[in-house]
């Protein structure tokens, strides 16, 4: 019974977590390179060298001492995001969309004070949101204004596109759509919808919500499949460059589409989750094996890798 179930998953080319860790992450992602993706300040710096746009960095708060200048730091900024430099899973992020002098309004219309913000930043500094619980830095960066393309299928928050890149080849992609359940966050385990994207065309195919296949957004009621992701080719090149820029062979690239700036690299992930397989209703393992079987010639330039992926995956 169980053996048969295992066989079915294998035949569907599903990548399991043990296999991902042992055969892909451990083999292709050297530990020494992790800081490049775990620390968003480093990621931003690197992206800049490669000409990849990221949210504008206003301030980095590195210690409790510099927090007393918080008020002056925020003086000229109308809207901004506070996040941990080494956060994971979207925790510890506050989006400020409006403000008066001392009162701030988050994107989900919650009123917070400057005092609250500084408490939150000291939490970030103490490392409560960081991956290993080490002391962390807080980032204050520009707020993203999501492109209207997904507004019909988004409940608050910012939808983002996750592309898995293996050995420089984009292998699978999805767009993550916030819902009421996910509290406007684009994280699948918090209840966001993940809609698979066809690599060749950039159109959404199926979608998954709380590990069930769905066709419509639960809050807005609009269909989530058949949507064209704008700037698709640009996104693929950003994703593909992420490997060249970090040296990580198995990576998740998160991109948001800003109304004004177009695709912006939000963050990189050295241990991308497996739920993307459900969003695409397609197994990752099969695609990874296809990449391994691809002719050596395709790996020479990013353009060739993208072309091969659009053709074959």
């Amino acid at each position, binding site marked *: 019974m169980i053996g048969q179930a*295992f066989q079915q998953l294998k035949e569907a080319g599903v990548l399991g977590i043990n296999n991902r860790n042992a055969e892909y992450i451990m083999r292709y992602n050297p530990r020494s390179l992790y800081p490049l993706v775990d620390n968003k300040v480093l990621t931003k710096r690197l992206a800049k060298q490669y000409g990849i746009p990221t949210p504008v960095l206003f301030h980095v708060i590195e210690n409790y001492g510099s927090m007393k200048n918080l008020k002056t730091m925020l003086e000229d900024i109308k809207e901004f995001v506070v996040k941990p430099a080494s956060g994971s899973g979207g925790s510890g992020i506050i989006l400020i969309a409006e403000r008066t002098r001392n009162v701030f309004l988050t994107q989900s219309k919650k009123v917070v004070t400057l005092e609250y913000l500084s408490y939150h930043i000291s939490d970030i500094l103490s490392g409560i949101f960081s991956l290993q619980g080490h002391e962390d830095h807080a980032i204050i960066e520009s707020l993203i204004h999501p492109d209207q393309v997904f507004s019909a299928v988004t409940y608050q928050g910012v939808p983002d596109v996750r592309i898995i890149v293996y050995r420089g080849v984009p292998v699978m992609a999805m767009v993550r759509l916030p819902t009421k359940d996910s509290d406007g966050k684009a994280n699948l385990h918090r209840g966001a919808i993940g809609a698979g994207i066809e690599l060749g065309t950039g159109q959404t195919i199926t979608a998954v919500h709380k590990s069930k296949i769905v066709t419509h957004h639960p809050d807005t009621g609009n269909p989530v499949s058949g949507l064209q992701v704008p700037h698709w080719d640009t996104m693929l090149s950003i994703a593909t460059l992420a490997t060249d820029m970090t040296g990580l062979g198995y990576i998740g690239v998160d991109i948001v589409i800003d109304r004004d700036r177009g695709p912006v690299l939000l963050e990189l992930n050295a241990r991308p989750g497996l739920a993307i397989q459900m969003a695409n209703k397609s197994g990752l393992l099969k695609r990874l094996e296809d990449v391994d079987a691809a002719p050596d010639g395709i790996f020479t330039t990013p353009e060739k890798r993208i072309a091969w992926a659009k053709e074959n995956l």
Partner: protein
Amino acid sequence: MKRPAVLLALGLLILTAVLLLYRIIGLGYPVLPASTGQAFHFKFDGHIKSDGGDTTLSVALPSERPGLIISEEYFGSGSLSFNLFRKESGRYGVWIGQTGRDGEIVSYRAMILMRSPGTAKPKSPVLEKYPPLTNKDEQTAAEKITERLKLLPLPERIETILKLMEDSGSRPPELTFFKFMEGRYSQSTLLLTLFRAALIPARVVDGVRLTEGIVTKPLTWIEAWNGQTWEGLSIDGKETLKDQATLLALTVDGTPVVHVAGGKINDTRWDINRQIVGQWRHNYEHISRSERFLDRWSLFRLPTEFQQTFRILLLVPIGALLICILRNIIGFPTFGIFMPVLMALSFRNTGLIYGLSIFAGVILVGYAARRFLDRLRLLLVPRMSVLLTLVIVCFTLLALFGNKFGLRQVMAVGLLPFVILVMTIERFFVVVEEHGIRTALQTSAGSAAVAFITYLIISSETLQLTFFIYPELLLSIGALQILIGRYTGYRLSELFRFREFRDPS
């Protein structure tokens, strides 16, 4: 890529096997060290008081025979002199002397080790005389009754006599005989007379039952020779004893177990305790005297005060293996990686029920406190420290109340890993916030379950002994851990997670 790991694991397994074989075949270690025998702590105590002059007390003691080893004997004689006599019927401890006005306590202690008797068969006994009280006429009458039985094989002869005893002789000649005999003698004398008449060797045995407990009188039963072995019978001859293996004979010829002349003995008691510790001692004595290579490097050579720690320590990797299986093959989350193992270790101080209650209580109280602390906006490290202080204050109060109301167990918190508990509170809080209370409770239940199973494992004396004698078993545990480390197949939980892919549609 998998080959080196699998080869290493295989190598470790082979090394384990080689070392095990060497110890078992080369050094003659027991294959199943904890189950080939049982050990009992045998205690006899009595209070003796002289009538005025010298008193002689004779007490039958257990004696060695195939399958039964006696070690660590100790005699307490007070002001009396003590001697040990060995007779045909058994061993006797004899205390002689004059006690004070308040009498003396005499005592005997021994460790009895029961092992498989092997192939040694008991000697065929000679036919004894008739029970001394009976006269010639009675003996002739008994012979007449049993005349026809002499042609039957021994086991059936015994069976027929037991049947006769049960019916008290239903036919006239037998009836008269039984009527007459039952009037004059005890059931056991009657039974022995019949056995003797039918030429079956039989004897009265006095002894104790080798089960946990205290008795104030020895037990008497009858044994009849069935050609192969002694068959135990109840003293009235009405039934065969099915649990004869648990009986320890002290005298076998009707001699009383305790005999006193010139005084009185009170408060006799036999206290029997089953002990696995005796096994330790037995192996210890065997190994610490040997000069063979692995014996010299045995853990039994460590100073005794450190041995206790290693007994437990050697089993901790099994707990870790369990967590490997749970997390990587089943896919069930626990708080922290080794938190359940630490919990299990702390259960050794607290006991299981109280330990699990602590776990539940601390999480509950800690969670409430953590919710409240959230409003105070304390920084991470001081906040955790506050929780730690709070938890320790709670335990201190509990211990004080426990002392007041005589609840010993609530004071026995020992070196419970409080710090780990506080980390768990923090983890629990984060899991509740991020994944909901359901997931948090599931994870707690999983952690408690692993702690429970690990506790059972590390408290198993059998496993402790086995790993202590064969520490190389750790290599095979390591091998299994390596194999799980290279298990890249699906987790059981993924069958559920990716169930959409298993759907034929």
